[in-house]
Each structure stands twice: as C-alpha cells, then as structure tokens.
C-alpha cells in the first residue's frame, strides 16, 4: 500500500546544502501538496523520491524497503514540461509503457497483444478527455491536453506513487480547473499516493489531503550555501479528504472558475485601495 518514510534526509550538492533533516511519513493514498519558495529544493525532494538523486545522508523507504536508486515503473511522474514524447502520437505515448513492459527487445507490440493494450490505452485516453485526439502529435495539443496526456501515460503503468512537479503551472485558470476535477477523480478511483509540487496555494489546498511547506530559515546570500531548507509547516486538511470516498455533491469551488465569475471573492479585498 506504499507508506513512504523519509528518515532524517539531507541533500547537498557539492558544498551547498539544499535540504536539511527532512523526516516525514507519507501515509498510503495520501495526496501531499508540496509548497515553498523557488529554489528551496522541492524538485530535489521529488528527484530523491524518484530515485534520480540519492540522499547525502539519511534514508528513504517505501513500505519499509529502501528505495530503489533508479526511477522505475512503480513511481509515475508528470513534469511541468517535456513529460510527453513529441515523436509519438497521443495513442503512441500512452501505449509506450505497455510496449516497454511487454517486449524487452523490440519494445513494440503486435497482433492480439497490441489490440488488447490499445483498448486499454483508448479507455484511459477517453478517461482523461482526449478521445478523438488519438492520432495527434503533442505539438498539436494545447498545454492542458498535453498534461492530461502525461497523466494518462503515467497512469497506464498503475504506479503506486505518482509524483507531480508543478504539472499545471503553465496552464490557463479555466483549463486548470478542468484538470483539477480530473485529478481528484483519478485519485479517488486509483490506488495512488500522490506527491505534487505546486506554486499555487489555491491548488495545494484544493487538491491535497496534506500541505507541506519547505522554507530556508536562513536565506541571506552569505548563508545560502551553509544552510538548507527545512520542512517548515505540515498541515492536514480538515475535514480530512479520504481517497475513494464518494464525491460529495457540493461542487468544488475551483470547478466554477471561469474568467469573470471570479469577480465576487476577488473584488472585495481590492476595494480597499
């Protein structure tokens, strides 16, 4: 069920300490939103979880087992950019994981195996709302569609952990609201622990079950190198969201956001000027 434990993890690049004494337990099926100022080490934290970077000190375990030191199919990922393959169509992108798993040498599927994988991929593509675009290349999709594609591509591997590094940072508010709905549904329906880095507070609190903030307590230039960021806040959302629990009928505030309906709660504070 994938409980992730960080046990006093430090990360240094050369002389620069990026993260200090991170100790943290992420419950199975949690949706952790990770926030913090630019450069504080959020991406570095994700990279360690991915296995791309090793901690300088301390240990990371998943279900008690030390983390494999390389990215693998148990952990899916979506980045802000470059998450999909520009040379593959939508279908090709989603199929890729299946093909890699099934055919170690050719990395391609044929005949019945391909048809089965294709059906699964098509279902997933429809689920993220890309039905009809199967034969398009990523460059022909909008930013929001590309990120949905990246999600579908990661989810077809049924990873235990899904890591998202500012996946929606480059999107329009309207598109972002759509994708939030999708994200929530997927999290409810799939057996997933999610760790998402975001710059957007609203997003963190809309989606997360838990919001974690990193901060550098000492951030004067001359101190930068000697001190890293710490885990400075850790808030559980209340009342708790529970994965798989039936979606309440009250629509999410975010889903309503369309450019001008926003007015109400934003006009108020600005009237002070």
């Amino acid at each position, binding site marked *: 069920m994938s409980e992730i434990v960080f046990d006093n993890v430090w990360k240094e690049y050369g002389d620069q300490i990026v993260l200090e004494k991170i100790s943290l337990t992420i419950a199975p099926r949690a949706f952790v939103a990770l926030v913090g100022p630019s450069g504080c080490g959020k991406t570095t934290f994700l990279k360690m979880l991915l296995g791309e970077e090793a901690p300088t000190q301390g240990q990371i375990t998943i279900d008690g087992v030390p983390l494999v030191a390389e*990215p693998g199919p148990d952990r899916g990922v979506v980045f802000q950019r*470059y998450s*999909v393959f520009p*040379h593959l169509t939508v279908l090709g992108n989603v199929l890729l994981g299946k093909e*890699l*798993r099934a055919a170690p040498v050719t990395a391609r599927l044929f005949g019945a195996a391909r048809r089965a994988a294709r059906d699964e991929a098509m279902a997933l593509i429809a689920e993220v709302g890309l039905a009809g675009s199967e034969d398009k290349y990523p*460059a022909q999709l909008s930013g929001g569609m590309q990120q949905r594609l990246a999600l579908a591509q990661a989810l077809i*591997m049924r*990873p235990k952990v899904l890591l998202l590094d500012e996946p929606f940072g480059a999107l329009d508010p309207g598109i972002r609201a759509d994708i939030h709905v999708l994200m929530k549904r997927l999290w409810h329906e799939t057996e997933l622990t999610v760790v998402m880095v975001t710059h957007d507070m609203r997003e963190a609190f809309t989606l997360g079950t838990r919001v974690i903030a990193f901060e550098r307590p000492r951030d004067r230039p001359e101190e930068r190198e000697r001190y890293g960021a710490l885990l400075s806040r850790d808030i559980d959302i209340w009342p708790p969201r529970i994965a798989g629990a039936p979606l309440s009928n009250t629509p999410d505030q975010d889903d309503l956001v369309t450019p001008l309906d926003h007015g109400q709660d934003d006009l108020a504070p600005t009237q002070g000027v």
Partner: protein
Amino acid sequence: MRWINRKPGPGVRTMLMLAPFVLLVLAYGLGSMARLSDNPSDKLLPALGTMVDAINRMAFVPDVRTGEYVLWSDTGASLGRLSIALGLSTLIALVTGMLVGMLPYVRALLAPFIATISMVPPLALLPILFIVLGLGETAKIALIVIGVAPAMIRDLALRVQELPREQITKAETLGASSWQIALRVVLPQILPRLITSLRLQLGPAWLFLIAAEAISADSGLGYRIFLVRRYLSMDVIFPYVAWITLLAVITNFALDRLRIAVFPWSNLEAR
C-alpha cells in the same frame, strides 16, 4: 518605416532572388567577351556557346574510347561513391553518436578522441589510406567517411545530450531499459536531426569525393575535372562545377522534404 520592418512583396522577392544569378551570368559574359576579343583562343572564360558545345559533347556524344556518354557515366560513378560513403557515415554517426550521447562511459572513452580526430586534415593522410585500403572504391569512400563522420558524430551526440532529461526520466518510470530508451525514445527523435546533419555535410562530402577522384579513378566528376584541368578546358570544368552544385542543391532540398515526410512531428515542433 525602419528597414528591418520593410518586407518585399512576392514579385519583388522573386526578382531580388534571381538578381545575383543573372548578374553573375552577365559578369561572366562580359569578362568572357573581353578576354576573347584579346585572344580568340583564350580558354579561361570560354564563350557560352563553347560551353554548350562541350556539354553537348560530354552528355550526348559517346566517348570514342569507351562508347559511354561521359557526363552520365561520370555522374553515375560519383553519385555511387557519394551515396555509399554518406550512407556509411550516417550509419556510423548514428550508432556512435547515440552511444556517446547516451552512455557516460562511452562518452568518457570516445568524446575527446573524436574531437581530436575531427581536427586531423584527411587530405594529408591520403597515401596511408590508399595503401591500407587499396586503390579501388574503398579508399575513396573511406576518405569521405573519415572527412565527414567525426563532425556528424559530434553533432548527433550533442543532440542526444540536449534531449530533455525529463524525457529520459519519464521513460524510466515507464520501465524502460537502456536499450529500450535508445530504441523508442532517443533513436526516433534523433533521426530527423541525422538528416539535417547529413545535409550540412553535403558540401564537405563533395569536396572529399573530388579530392579522392583527383588521385586515382577512371571516371567520376572530380576525375574529369582534374583530367581536363591540364588543358585548362574551362568549357568542360564550368558545366561540371555547375552540375555538381545543382546536384548538391537538389540533394539538400530532397533530404529536407524527406525529413518532413517521414517525421512529420519534427516540423510541428519548430512552430
């Protein structure tokens, strides 16, 4: 309006495009007339009519010795050599470039060596090449490959390294092995660049082909140019040079079309 913002219309554009070519021909014609009026048997800048005669002789009258149409057999021989050599270079560059670009061990091993090799002037090593590889087609092809492949390898290796790290990571999270990453992620993305890299090497490839044919051959465009150079037969050399240029320009254009046709996504990105 600033000059940087002024754009010629389509008609003006065509005229501007043709102007330098027309000027070149005109300048040639004047130069030729001036020299020929001094010395009617001058061979350096033959009259256009003389060149037409020469083209006619080379292209449409069979050679007394071999019975072949010289221009066509020369073209065939040269293009044959060129295409084998470029095919080989492309293959070598693809394999080596991918290995150097993807695997840090291979990169440590080969990158400095290839960078050094690419600075060796191949013409100076011709004798060795001919002796090691014999005088047949092999040595000529090898000269082109040696002259062209190092630059292509470096270019491709660089492009492989420029692939966003995120893509490799993503592939790894999809369970890809090194081999699978090479096959499904790196290779297809590098192929369009391979074609572009090949286009950039067309000029040098012709150069080496001509140099090789100058030394030992019994047909080929470069062979003919060097053979008749002893007689300063510019009436043959000019058309041959123009023909080589035309072939190169066409190849260049055709390769680009090929890239767009085979890898449509590679043009979408450039938007």
